């Protein structure tokens, strides 16, 4: 259910194994309902599609990974680039979902599955206590197993009784604009050539102190620019994510790179960010949950990844089903193999490693105090005002005296050590 990364990876593997597979997608086409920040990291896609770089409609590959700390006017940036990013196994691909998911669904279809777009499950089909298929478009579609890959608002996982609605504390809202430019303008402004691209994350004034951040990704001939903020914090502060985005766009460092572009799309989406702390039970009789529907998203503060987790979980679901088919056993016990596979892979290992990160990242100091402190120190180091200078250590101490106290910082460092 759902032709996103999880559903397509699962459907692709099942079809390759010769199993009769139907991928149901409620959008008019795969990707019609999907948006994200912008980049896919890790080798999962290349494992599935060895010719990915030649075939897939990716925008650019990530060669510049930049993170910036913002105050209202200042910006302190750290950028990492390595020739490794340009090697054939590229670490990250910048992707627009509407184009990419369509390609992915075509691959699934080529492998032998049926992708039914414009169809949605109205309900699950039950045989006593086990899931026995779906009801869609007035038809009953029986199945040995149903895999819910229907995203963060997964209706099916709720109908199957595996999870409740997620709570706003565990959710971040992302809003994004696509702004079009001539390709050369993007390459000049971001110092890119050919298919090189930049992933740019922002922490600080872009969320006005709320847990979250800003982002810019360079597409081929557009920029993705957006803001992500904790859902309950938006409600408590009585501010819309779009207000944060509009303010973010006026920051001097941001305003100059988006100047003169043409808005071509505005989108919004939710991200389940509490990882393993919010993860539902992953399987029941005749039923599995994968991807965002199961909150398989890793947020460490420096990275926010979900699509590679979705693909890995989709593949693990397919392996589980292929094994269950061989044994003709789709019971809960047989499908529990899915969890074992995930426990052995980076999916649950990473989510367990960063179990404390979501709570740590709610600390407002990360979004106001530290960006402020970092920019203040940078001012003291870099601005030449004719006064005698202190050593860097002394400048740091002065920044600290002005902006914070050790009593604020030491507990954060101790908590951060175990969390991120």
């Amino acid at each position, binding site marked *: 259910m759902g032709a996103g990364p999880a559903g397509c990876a699962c459907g692709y593997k099942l079809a390759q194994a010769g199993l009769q597979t139907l991928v149901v997608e*409620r*959008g*008019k086409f795969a*990707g*019609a*309902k*999907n*948006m*994200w920040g912008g980049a896919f990291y890790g080798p999962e896609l290349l494992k599935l599609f060895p010719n990915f770089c030649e075939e897939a409609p990716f925008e650019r590959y990530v060669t510049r990974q930049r993170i910036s700390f913002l105050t209202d006017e200042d910006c302190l940036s750290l950028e990492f680039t390595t020739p490794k990013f340009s090697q054939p196994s590229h670490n990250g691909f910048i992707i*627009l*979902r*509407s*184009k*990419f*998911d369509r390609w992915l669904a075509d691959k699934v279809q080529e492998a032998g599955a049926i992708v039914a*777009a*414009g*169809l*949605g499950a109205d309900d699950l089909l039950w045989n006593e206590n086990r899931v026995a298929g779906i009801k869609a*478009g007035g038809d009953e579609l029986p199945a040995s197993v149903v895999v819910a890959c229907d995203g*963060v*608002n997964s*209706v099916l996982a709720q109908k199957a009784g595996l999870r409740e*609605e*997620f*709570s*706003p504390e565990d*959710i971040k*809202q992302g*809003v994004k*604009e*696509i702004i079009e430019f001539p390709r050369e303008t993007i390459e000049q402004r971001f110092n890119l050539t050919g298919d090189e691209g930049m992933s740019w994350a922002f922490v600080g004034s872009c969320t006005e102190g709320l847990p979250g951040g800003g982002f810019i990704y360079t*597409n081929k001939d*557009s920029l*993705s620019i957006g803001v992500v903020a904790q*859902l*309950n914090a*938006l*409600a408590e*502060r*009585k*501010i*819309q*994510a*779009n207000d944060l985005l*509009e303010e973010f*766009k*006026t920051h001097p460092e941001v*305003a100059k790179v988006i100047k003169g572009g043409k*808005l*071509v*799309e*505005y*989108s*919004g*989406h*939710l991200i389940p960010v509490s990882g393993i702390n919010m993860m539902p039970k992953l399987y029941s009789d005749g039923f599995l949950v994968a991807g965002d529907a199961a909150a398989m998203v890793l947020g460490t503060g420096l990275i926010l990844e979900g699509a590679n987790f979705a693909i890995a979980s989709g593949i693990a679901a397919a392996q589980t089903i292929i094994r269950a088919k061989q044994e003709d056993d789709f019971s809960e016990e047989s499908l529990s193999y899915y969890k074992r596979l995930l426990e052995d892979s980076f999916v649950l290992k990473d989510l367990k490693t960063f179990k404390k990160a979501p709570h740590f990242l709610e600390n407002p100091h990360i979004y106001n105090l530290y960006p402020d402190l970092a920019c203040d120190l940078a001012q003291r180091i870099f601005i030449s005002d004719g006064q005698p200078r202190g050593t860097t250590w002394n400048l740091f101490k002065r920044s600290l005296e002005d902006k914070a106290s050790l009593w604020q910082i030491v507990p954060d460092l101790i908590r951060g050590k175990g969390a991120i």
Partner: protein
Amino acid sequence: MSTISIEDKLSVNKFDIDKDVHIKINEDICKSCQEHVCLYVCPANCYKLSEGHITFSYEGCLECGSCHIACDKGAIDWTLPRPGFGICYQYG
């Protein structure tokens, strides 16, 4: 730089608007609500407060689910639009 309104932003999006309305609100609950979190969590301005009443429009809904999750009063019955209808992202 002039800011662009949400309505202007939504106007560049592609929607296939259904005649069926996929959002329902319980006006009795909304009347007694003080917080009106729906006004802030909806990225598409689907909810508006006019003369003490919450009104809504469903046409520009981005189908994120924020309203349903954030309204702890249970006043919003938000479902997905019928398959094939609603927001249709061209970029994503």
